[in-house]
């Protein structure tokens, strides 16, 4: 009889605590549910905030980085003297390795017609160092810019590059609008 009573009391306490744990779990999830989004999140670089510091090439958990240079052709001036392709003080405006700014020769230069040249990024070679982006943004139209390529990106819970990005240019964006490619993506008005 005595043990029965203790058992009943213990059971009662257990049930009570279980119920309150269930309630608190429910409350937490309900509170989170109010702010839930059906869309998933991915990481992306805002090209207008990027300062081309070069950390994208070194900090990404992927080797080589999931950050690549993309080319917004609509903005390109097709310049012969391309600040993104040629080294400052290059001897000649040609495809010579000594004249190229890109350390991995990931940019292909192709003659279109006088005086225009097309520049194509070879994604497999690009390491996301942003040297060309800096050149193009400083001297050209800024058509070259960095983006996180999502079939390479692991989509870490916290992006290792975002943690060290000096200008906080890497943000969580909705997976349905996963890219901020210049041209389509305009600079937000301040």
């Amino acid at each position: 009889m005595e043990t029965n009573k203790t058992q009943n009391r213990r059971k009662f306490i257990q049930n009570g605590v279980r119920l309150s744990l269930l309630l608190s779990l429910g409350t937490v999830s309900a509170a989170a549910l109010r702010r839930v989004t059906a869309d998933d999140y991915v990481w992306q670089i805002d090209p207008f905030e990027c300062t081309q510091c070069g950390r994208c090439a070194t900090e990404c958990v992927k080797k080589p980085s999931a950050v690549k240079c993309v080319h917004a052709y609509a903005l390109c001036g097709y310049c012969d003297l391309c600040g993104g392709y040629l080294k400052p003080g290059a001897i000649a405006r040609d495809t010579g390795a000594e004249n190229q700014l890109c350390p991995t020769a990931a940019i292909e230069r192709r003659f279109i017609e006088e005086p225009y040249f097309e520049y194509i990024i070879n994604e497999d070679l690009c390491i996301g160092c942003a040297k060309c982006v800096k050149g193009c943004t400083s001297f050209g139209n800024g058509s070259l810019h960095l983006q996180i390529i999502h079939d390479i990106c692991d989509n870490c819970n916290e992006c290792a590059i975002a943690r060290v990005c000096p200008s906080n240019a890497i943000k969580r964006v909705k997976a349905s609008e996963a890219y901020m490619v210049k041209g389509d993506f305009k600079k937000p008005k301040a």
Partner: protein
Amino acid sequence: MKKRFHFQYILRLSKSLPFGEVRRGFFFLLLAFCLLPFASFTQQQRFPKPEFSTGYEQPSTVVPEPRALAFEYFDVAVLLIVLSLTTWAVLKKRSRQYVLWLSLFTLAYFGFYREGCICSIGSIQNVTLSFANPNYAISVTALLFFVLPLAFTLFFGRTFCAGACPLGAIQDVVIMKPISLPKWLNKTLGLIPYLYLSLAVLFAATGTDFIICRYDPFVGIFRMDAKFHMVVLGIAFLLMGMFVARPYCRFLCPYSVLLSWMSRFSRHHMTITPSKCIQCKLCASSCPFDAIDYPTNEKEVIKSGLGPKRFLTYALVIPLWMAIGVFVGAKSHTFLSKANPDVYLAELLISKPEIKNDKDNIDVQTFLSSGKTLEMLVKEAEIIRNKFYIGSMIAGGFMGLVIGMTLLNTVVFRKRQDYEPHRGNCLSCARCMNYCPVEK
């Protein structure tokens, strides 16, 4: 300011030069100089888009889509199925074999295929951030990964740890010759998860860092690629795990705190024996995690002199522990807040103003060129530091409570006639069931 400088400079130059062609050239230069700052504001192209006469067609920028949302929900479904199957294997089938196969599947799918992301342990931070940051809305996947294992544990014990956690699975397969740790060491090391959890929540709530993900020792192994020190840490954990079974789960995992709370009050926790215990002690030596409680020896309890008096003392000391915790938290908030990049940068600029001339310091140079004033940065840093102040006091108080309760638990004796799994620590791995000689 800058523009005026250009203007005066050009005016002065143009005065010293003769009129004519050179002068006209300067007008263009002047125009270019004036337009240059404008160009970046109005998004005008410095070089207009050419009109091609050879019929060249401009390629479009191709960007691959991210992993489809359907696959994310598929992950949730896989988690749900694995959880249910493990629960069934532990509670109904009572088979270690089944649990082992399930955990191997988890290791392959959530570990090596999904590369350790998304995981329930890390989802604590997503939930925290969704409460702390109004701009962040949690995704359904992350929320379900957080809630599902906890809900399962509340009803069936920690079956998540047994079969559905990739971090647990990788440690489980390397267990070779587990040693039994002394009880005091087990209890003391068992406090670390609480500390880890409070720090993880603190860092996530202040928007500083996701430390659980950053210092996940096994994600580098899943991805076959990581920073050197993390690879060393991961391998060290696995080597240690050969002798101290599942060290991360027992002495670090912050999610284990929540699971342990749920499991303590679970409705249908697994039992070692299917019917009646014959006190053979085989199960106790089979458990690699020291998670089986022995039957209480009442004579020893009486002899040790532990009784209501000590219980009362320990209970009354709890507020003191909490006060100490709050004090330590308040004292350490300055140190902790330095993990936040904004606070760190503000402190650096104030303590070492000469760093502004350091051209190699990317953070400082980016800040200087961003147009933000030091006052603005300091103000932001102060807000973050204030959050740290409150947060670390709460965390400290929580740690004090945990220490007090752990001590209190050491003097509480529950009568046990049989060998029973410790509901908080038992990982429901089902090893003991294999060893139990009692037939169904």
